[in-house]
């Protein structure tokens, strides 16, 4: 029933968009996400989708156009990377505060400067407090699957929040892998029609959106966004359950890889999880009880569930593919450590900032982290919890 293919991560994202067949796509090219709107515009030209493709003059306009389209009552999508997302920044907050369930592919790349076009997560980490749901993808298959699930999550009436699907620039966006695609009609049925209750082009019931929202109201409207983000947790699980029924592929907030009986573990996101699984398998053969927690849902942050999954470990390393430049550690490290503290789990934890600007992270690097963890378990000493992996010094 499913279709066996071999596709790059960008092709997988573009094909997911083709099968979703949104009303509007507005995008501006930026490496490494350029191919997504490029492939998609060929689908438009070939008449394979009914989408209105808007070739805008900047990313700020790309997000503004998707906001307009979504507010009008349509389904709108876009794709970008790094500085493209930076230019969208103002509009990113408008999209979430107007409660517009736009879906974006974010192909992660280092935010300049100095100029770098390769992968890290500094773009995504820059919008982590903007009120978007953020899903991360280990490989092409997950980038595709997350996009197919995206609209069902974002458009749910208890959620109504925009959503971005992240994947690693070049590492997965430009690597061709085997992938299992769903058939067009199955995607169409799974994603369903978008029928918002209120929208701008409804001439029978005119509305105003984005009003002046001063001292008496903004606080409550922000709290409503926060509430929607909490609601998204259950919706993400429900949609994953339905997705499993048609694909057999299981998704949750995170994947626990050999974690249950592990003594030491790594927490990371996106493609590094693939390398880490390889290392975990090798270490297991040597009798070392290594495990992995691969985070898929970064926003909403599943704090309680993470604390439960990591609570039994003897030492944990968090891998941050973006440095917060705050003298204490990366964003993922801070979220995980605060989740552990609040949920009363005391496990020695260290942060490794790694892979900045596309610096290659090899199996040996990951193995050195597990060796460090073993040392922490043995000695109980963490001299410095804010470390680097693969930095020349």
């Amino acid at each position, binding site marked *: 029933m499913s279709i066996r293919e071999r596709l790059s991560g960008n092709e997988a994202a573009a094909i997911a968009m083709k099968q979703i067949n949104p009303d509007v796509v507005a995008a501006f090219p930026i490496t490494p996400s350029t191919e997504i709107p490029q492939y998609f515009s060929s689908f438009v030209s070939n008449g394979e989708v009914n989408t209105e493709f808007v070739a805008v003059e900047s990313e700020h306009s790309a997000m503004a156009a998707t906001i307009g389209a979504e507010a009008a009552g349509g389904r709108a999508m876009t794709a970008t990377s790094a500085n493209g997302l930076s230019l969208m920044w103002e509009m990113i907050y408008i999209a979430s505060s107007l*409660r*517009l369930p736009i879906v974006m592919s974010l192909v992660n790349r280092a935010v300049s400067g100095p100029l770098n076009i390769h992968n890290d997560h500094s773009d995504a980490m820059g919008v982590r407090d903007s009120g978007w749901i953020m899903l991360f993808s280990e490989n092409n298959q997950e980038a595709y699957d997350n996009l197919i699930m995206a609209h069902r999550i974002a458009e749910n009436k208890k959620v109504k929040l925009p959503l971005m699907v992240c994947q690693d620039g070049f590492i997965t966006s430009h690597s061709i892998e085997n992938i299992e695609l769903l058939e067009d009609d199955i995607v169409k049925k799974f994603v369903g029609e978008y029928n918002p209750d*209120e929208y701008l082009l409804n001439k029978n*019931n005119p*509305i105003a*959106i984005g009003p002046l929202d001063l001292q008496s*109201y903004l606080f*409550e409207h922000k709290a409503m966004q926060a509430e929607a983000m909490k609601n998204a947790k259950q919706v993400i699980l429900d949609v994953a359950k339905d997705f499993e029924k048609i694909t057999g592929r299981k998704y949750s907030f995170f994947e626990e890889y050999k974690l249950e009986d592990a003594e030491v573990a790594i927490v990371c996101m996106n493609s590094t999880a693939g390398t880490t699984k390889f290392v975990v398998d090798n270490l297991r053969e040597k009798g070392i009880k290594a495990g992995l927690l691969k985070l898929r849902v970064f926003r909403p942050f599943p704090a309680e569930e993470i604390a439960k999954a990591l609570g039994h470990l003897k030492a944990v390393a968090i891998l941050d593919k973006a440095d917060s430049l705050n003298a204490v550690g990366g964003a993922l490290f801070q979220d995980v450590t605060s989740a552990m503290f609040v949920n009363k789990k005391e496990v020695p934890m260290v942060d490794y900032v790694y892979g900045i600007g596309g610096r290659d992270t090899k199996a040996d690097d990951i193995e050195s982290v597990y060796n460090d963890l073993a040392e922490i378990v043995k000695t109980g000493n963490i001299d410095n919890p804010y470390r680097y992996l693969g930095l020349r010094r």
Partner: protein
Amino acid sequence: MTEKINSNTPMEELTPGGDIYEAGNARNFKTGDWRSIKPVYLSDKCKQCGLCFPVCPDDAIPVGKDQKRTDFNYDYCKGCGVCAKVCPFGAIVME
């Protein structure tokens, strides 16, 4: 729904994103309280020449079916003074 919302409404009863479900709602936003000086209409000096009301940016000079203007609508007049400037007869003074 939205006409009942005011600054005491709890968050559970607000609309998502502050959406307003009625058209023409700018009428409910009385911008006249931004005013620091106000125009005063001296009807005995007014010749009903019709120069003042087209220049008002806030439609704050009511005009009847008889094409004659009446006193200012201070709910929306921001006190910009454009009307006083265009009046050739000194029938509008800013105070």
